[in-house]
């Protein structure tokens, strides 16, 4: 999979990210490390991205999908675990603080919470002139002060604001100060980490406008990290959809908004309020919680929540019944089925707690449709699973479930598939793996 076909121009991209990984070690002490008890949080797990001169790429995803970590790993503020980041052809992945310094001038960062990104004990002048001091720009403090005032005006503040302290501004103004600081070094790339999510809705558009204005006047490339698709549609040229540390779909904004290829993208887009009634689609509600990045699901990471998950070849019913049964299976695997609670509830209602009653009750509670609507042989299998579980025979239950419920989505990882100018990774897009053909 190469995305060279996606380049908007023929030149070398400004920023190239290849197979970038950032895992955080959660082991706390020496014993953990020796015994291997520590686990690692796979915040970013093999991300490929390119950012071209003058474009805006948005990385979108739910909170906890690793998108902020991605931004910081790209800037070498988190040392990447694996993979490379190249800036204009130079590998900057493992540079030390000193070696990184010249690149710091080219790559800047804007933060989500503008107030906490500004040192409360420094005036705006001190905050904005610090980067210039560090990089030896400007001959004297007075020189830099002049430049600070210029920058303040450019971001829509006043010269006299230079002597104020951060807490004396509104949130939008604080974000403008943060933007002025990022611009002080005249960077080529700005990573904006949720630049407006902490701001009032009325101010958000102003800040986004400011960013696009500055982008065109400075010829900046912007990497915007956001959870908000309306931010994407307002400023981005391309969008990368991130789920659990991976990019699942990437491409031009219009194409992805109009014809999303990945079920996750479709779900995200269905939640965006549309003004035009014709554009409105039924909202796809994602069930289940986001799985932990410590132990991400096998195969396609989205399979535990995917509404379009592909039925196993052994499944006699249709997709919607499979989806229900598959969800039940996943809860079984993640030990989320609480037999004891079911039993207790029956007891409280004064009903019998023999295996069959508990099994029926468990299946009733776990399936949204009446269990009788499932094909007969499936019903039998489900009861069998439930009985194994009630008899404290989890292994057996899982084995039985595996026979009919192992979706290809769970078994193998989908590759990126190119479609037009965009790419997505979903088995639905691949010819070899279809519901009718059994996976190897």
């Amino acid at each position, binding site marked *: 999979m190469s995305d060279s076909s996606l380049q908007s121009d023929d030149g070398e991209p400004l920023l190239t990210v290849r197979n970038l990984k950032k895992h955080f070690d959660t082991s706390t002490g020496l014993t953990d490390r020796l015994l291997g008890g520590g686990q690692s949080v796979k915040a970013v797990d093999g991300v490929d991205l390119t950012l071209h001169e003058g474009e805006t790429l948005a990385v979108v995803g739910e909170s906890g999908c690793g998108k902020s970590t991605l931004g*910081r790993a790209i*800037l070498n*503020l988190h040392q990447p675990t694996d993979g490379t980041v190249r800036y204009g052809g130079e590998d900057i992945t493992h540079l030390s*603080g000193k070696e*990184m*310094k010249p690149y*710091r*001038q080219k*790559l*800047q*960062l804007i*933060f*989500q*919470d503008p107030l*906490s*990104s*500004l*040192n*409360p*004990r*420094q005036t705006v002048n001190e905050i904005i002139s*610090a*980067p210039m001091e*560090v*990089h030896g720009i400007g001959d004297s403090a007075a020189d830099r002060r002049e430049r600070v005032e210029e920058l303040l*005006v*450019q*971001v*829509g*503040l*006043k010269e*006299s*604001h230079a002597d*104020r*302290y951060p*807490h*004396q*501004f*509104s949130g*939008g*103004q604080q974000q*403008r100060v*943060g933007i002025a*600081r990022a611009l*002080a*070094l005249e960077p080529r790339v700005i990573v904006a980490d949720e630049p407006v999510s902490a701001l009032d809705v*009325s*101010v958000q558009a*102003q800040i986004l*406008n*400011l960013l696009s*204005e*500055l982008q065109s*006047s400075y010829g900046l490339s912007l990497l915007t990290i956001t959870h908000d698709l309306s931010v994407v549609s307002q400023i981005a040229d391309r969008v990368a959809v991130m789920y659990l540390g991976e990019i699942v779909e990437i491409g031009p904004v219009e194409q992805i908004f109009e014809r999303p290829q990945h079920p996750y993208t479709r779900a995200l887009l269905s939640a965006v309020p549309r003004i035009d009634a014709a554009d409105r689609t039924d909202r796809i509600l994602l069930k289940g919680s986001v799985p932990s990045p410590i132990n991400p699901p096998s195969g396609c990471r989205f399979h535990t929540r995917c509404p379009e998950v592909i039925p196993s070849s052994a499944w006699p019913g249709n997709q919607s019944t499979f989806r229900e049964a598959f969800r039940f299976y996943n809860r079984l695997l993640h030990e989320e089925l609480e037999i004891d609670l079911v039993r207790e509830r029956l007891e409280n209602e004064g009903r019998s707690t023999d295996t069959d009653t508990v099994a029926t009750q468990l299946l009733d509670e776990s399936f949204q449709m009446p269990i009788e609507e499932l094909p007969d042989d499936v019903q039998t299998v489900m009861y069998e699973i439930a009985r194994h579980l009630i008899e404290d025979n989890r292994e057996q239950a899982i084995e039985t479930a595996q026979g009919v419920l192992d979706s290809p989505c769970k078994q193998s990882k989908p590759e990126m598939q190119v479609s037009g100018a965009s790419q997505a990774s979903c088995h639905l897009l691949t010819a070899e793996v279809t519901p009718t053909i059994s996976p190897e």
Partner: protein
Amino acid sequence: MSTSQSPIDAKADEIDDVEEHLTLRKRLWGTLKRDKKSMLGAIVILSFLLVAIFAPYVAPVDPEQEYGIMEPPNTHSETADGEAYHLLGTDSYGYDIFSRIIFGARISLLVALVTVLFAFTTGTAIGLAAGYYGGWIDSLLMRYVDFQWAFPTLILAAGIIAVSGSLGVINVIIAVGVAFIDDFARLVRSEVLSLREKEYVVAARAIGMSDRRIMIKEILPNAVASLIVQVTLMIPIAILAEASLSFLGLGVRPTTPTWGLMLNEGRQFITQAWWLSIFPGFAIMIVVLAFNAFGDGLRDAFDVKEGEVLDR
């Protein structure tokens, strides 16, 4: 690019009624005005400092001048050039107690200030490095601090003096100063641990700032409030430590006028001449209480939580 296109936030237009920025100095002054107890503490501290600085002018007589021994307070001695008045009497060598307390303020305050300054500098450096770098640097430095923390201040100081083998002001300063390093190191480390996660520190790294500059210019100023409080609360402890060392005969040379030594010498005569030890004792008590009152005021002014400083 013109700025008219990016409308200034609504709030920017009401610029002229912004919340006032309170510097540390303004906050301190505000608290002193409100809190009479800390104001009193500040005044007492200031007067003692002035007295210490101008001791030769304030003291009625030379502290090395001998008069009749153990004259009670409020008496006079006949001398060659007239009379000498002993407000607080004379001691077992015949020195004027009032004058010796005044000169003693010099030594006691100087020793306390320099001691705390020494501990402050060293402890802050250790705490900054440990908290900022973490990892093995942290383990190593904090292992040392824990080791030191396990010893009571006085025993450690006495040990240091015993090892160095001589008495004297410098030795007392080093001994007590070393014994206080752990307090500052712990305080600064815990402050740094929370401050280094702040986004403005990430921002500083993102602009390529050196670690040293980040520590000194971005992190330390935000820890300064609790450090000032800690200093104010450590000074009285240093005064007591110096007095205790002198009292044990481990402090400065026996002829130097310090409050601790005076207390010690007067102790033997407590039944015949109470004023020998009571007055130096009062001096110690008043200064210690004044620093504590002032320190409490500072703690409120800077909004430093109790327990955040001084885990002694």
